[in-house]
């Protein structure tokens, strides 16, 4: 670790809270001159919040960021640039309706160095008058990086830069990034990919639960230690109450998915989900799981592949179709699922009135009974009845689930249902999921918290790069196995 006095960038004790969620508690990062430092952390560890604070998009609640020894007053990405810190974000920050040249002009970037870097990065044929909209995603990444390099930054912040790049371009990008560091510049490299980190980084800073838990020099075999650090004490204290193994049901599966593809991320996913089963889905961020759940819930159309429910092929053009087929989604973002300004009861009762034939008088007593059952099943704290927005995160999540309990569950699609909620509620949700399965429901359970697979699921499919790379039984699903599989480090062949 460099002495923080000579660090080009030195962040210490950074904390940030969003409402009830403490995204960062005590994050720190030191980057020395000529170094490439990897910033790592599992989903939800606080990486993206930290990146936003470093680049001035967000203001920290406490802690400080020093750049070149001075307290940073960066308040916007443009301000960060004046300090010599240039970020390249996950989504290209280029204007789709302007040409490449106009985008450069917009940010006062010189053309000549840009051309040099574009050629260096493997796109010598790029036309400056090409519209950004017309370029493929991989080229956009290169353009974004070349623009950043042309600004001659002291610190380059690269956020999941290689995620959409083909292998040959990755190699060039890595070479250029390393060369930057060798020329005395500094790079913060946010990535999930161990091979790249091993190839170009000097050190890795590991975040977990908003804390910086380690700062390691990169050396052979370091992957295991980083994985352990990202998991932290969780491995040791793994809750032992694993779901008792159940024989996998045979016969026609409740849900059969074959070769499902949509968009650029979900390329080829197949699995079976049986009645009475809880099937976990394990994936790093952006591996196609969002698209998978959206297709199954009728919120997005598949471009290839089939979905069968109880042996009958189905194609959903609206969530109502999926619901009619018994597939009900609890989305990851509660803001997408809840009527924040309405009451608990109204939230739970929406599916009951969705169809035209239910538009008339609401059978108040029957509705009250259904809602009361759901509230009781989920133990929702209904003291704040008025507006769902005033409930705690855990109770909000329970409301989104209760919506589908009220009318009986067939197939429940849970997308990261425990994100950002307290441990007690989490346990209640695991228990509920198991109960539902025991009563004959089928549950598809994506979670960003790997420990949950053991607690709630019977099996888990691991998705990497848009395809299923592994199927793991809950009994074997300890976190490091899952983590390795999720990072594509597993040696097991896909089942």
């Amino acid at each position, binding site marked *: 670790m460099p002495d923080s006095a000579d660090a080009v960038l030195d962040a210490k004790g950074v904390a940030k809270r969003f409402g009830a969620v403490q995204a960062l508690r005590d994050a720190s990062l030191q980057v020395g001159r000529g170094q490439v430092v990897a910033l790592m952390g599992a989903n939800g560890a606080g990486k993206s919040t930290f990146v936003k604070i470093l680049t001035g998009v967000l203001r920290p609640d406490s802690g400080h960021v020093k750049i070149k020894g001075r307290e940073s007053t960066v308040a916007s990405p443009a301000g960060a640039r004046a300090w010599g810190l240039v970020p390249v974000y996950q989504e290209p920050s280029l204007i789709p309706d302007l040409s490449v040249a106009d985008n450069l002009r917009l940010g006062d970037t010189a053309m000549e160095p840009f051309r040099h870097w574009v050629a260096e990065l493997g796109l010598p044929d790029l036309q400056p008058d090409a519209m950004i909209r017309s370029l493929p995603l991989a080229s956009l990444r290169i353009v974004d990086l070349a623009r950043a390099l042309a600004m001659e930054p002291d610190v380059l912040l690269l956020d999941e830069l290689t995620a959409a790049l083909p292998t040959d371009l990755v190699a060039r990008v890595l070479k250029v990034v390393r060369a930057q560091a060798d020329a005395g510049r500094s790079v913060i490299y946010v990535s999930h990919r161990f091979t790249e980190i091993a190839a170009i980084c000097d050190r890795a800073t590991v975040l977990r639960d908003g804390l910086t838990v380690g700062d390691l020099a990169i050396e052979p075999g370091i992957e295991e230690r980083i994985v352990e650090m990202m998991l932290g004490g969780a491995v040791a204290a793994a809750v032992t109450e694993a779901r008792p193994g159940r024989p996998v049901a045979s016969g026609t599966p409740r849900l059969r998915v074959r070769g499902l593809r949509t968009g650029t991320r979900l390329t080829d996913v197949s699995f079976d989900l049986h009645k009475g089963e809880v099937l976990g889905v394990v994936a790093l961020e952006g591996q196609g799981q969002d698209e998978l759940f959206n297709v199954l819930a009728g919120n997005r159309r598949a471009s290839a592949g089939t979905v069968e429910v109880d042996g009958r092929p189905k194609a959903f053009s609206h969530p109502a179709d999926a619901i009619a087929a018994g597939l009900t989604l609890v989305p990851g973002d509660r803001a997408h699922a809840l009527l924040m300004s309405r009451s608990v009861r109204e939230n739970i009762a*929406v*599916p009951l009135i969705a169809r035209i034939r239910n*538009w008339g008088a609401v059978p108040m007593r029957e509705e009250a009974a259904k809602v009361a059952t759901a509230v009781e099943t989920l133990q929702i704290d209904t003291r704040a009845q008025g507006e769902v927005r005033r409930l705690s995160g855990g109770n909000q999540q329970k409301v989104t689930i209760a919506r589908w309990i009220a009318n009986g569950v067939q197939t429940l699609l849970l997308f990261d249902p425990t994100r950002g909620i307290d441990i007690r509620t989490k346990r209640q949700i695991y228990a509920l999921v198991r109960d539902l399965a025991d009563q004959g429901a089928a549950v598809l359970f994506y979670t960003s918290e790997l420990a949950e697979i053991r607690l709630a699921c019977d099996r888990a499919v691991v998705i990497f790069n848009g395809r299923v790379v592994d199927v793991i039984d809950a009994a074997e699903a300890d976190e490091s196995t899952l983590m390795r599989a999720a990072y594509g480090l597993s040696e097991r062949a896909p089942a």
Partner: protein
Amino acid sequence: MTAMTEAPSALTRLGRLMADNPLLPLTLLLFLLIGVLAVMNPAILSLFWAGNTIKIAIPLAMLAACQTLTMLTGGIDLSVGTVATITAFMTATLAPLTGVPPAIAVALACAVLVGLVNGFGVAICRVHPLIMTLGTALIATGCLLVYQRYVIATGVLIPDFLIWLGTGRSLGLPNSLALFVPFAILIIWAQRRSGFGRLLYAIGANEEAARLSGVRVWQVHLTLYTLSSLIAGVTGMLYLGQIKTASLSLALPLDLPSVAAAVIGGTSIFGGRGGYGGTILGALILTVLTTMLTLLQIPEGGRRILFGLIILAVTALFIRLTERS
């Protein structure tokens, strides 16, 4: 690190109070305005004045029902004034030719047609309701002008029962209450106790969530805008009985106040909050306010500026309050 629970500021608490019980501060405001009016001109207050104020407020409150319902979903209906004018004009001019019941039926059918076009544009094409309803209002006005050229010679007949409803009084109270009270009860019941009413709130609060819960949003929009036009049509007939002339711009001046009444009544222009109870008070407040502006001899221009600023200020205040909590 401990989680500090912020003590809610006075403003936040006021905001919650307003959001939970919008009727309370509105009632206070209404009586405050009446009080000011009493100071300005003590002679004006009387039972007759009260009845008159209610009579004038009723068509406004009914058109504001259209705004309330559409605004609950985050929409708006700026064609209500035109629709009301069209039904009134058609009823009055067709009645001598065909008799009263067919005239009313045809007029209401025209209102429904405008509503269906609005609903089609908003629900299927996803045009912003504001643009869509302005557009249909423009076309409908053109149609009315064409229609007027062919019926101008036939004369005008305003059905007696509409005059009774619009201008008559029983026991000192305006007869229009006979239409309005059941109407208001129906709307207030429907917004809480019917599936359709609940869906309006659901779509306005979070259209995506409603969709994910299986609501086919276009069905709701199409029904809603048709219903809105139908209400506007009925209002037009009531207004015809009140004004007792068939004019080509009869109810047009009510367009803007109907939006203002709903906004003042606590219905959010972004949807998901509010209700018709507040709107009725909003319509009364506006009517009293108009009386006051007339007493002060504020010209029409000043009134429009005031209404525009009220809409803007209430909306901006609303955003502030909801962002805090």
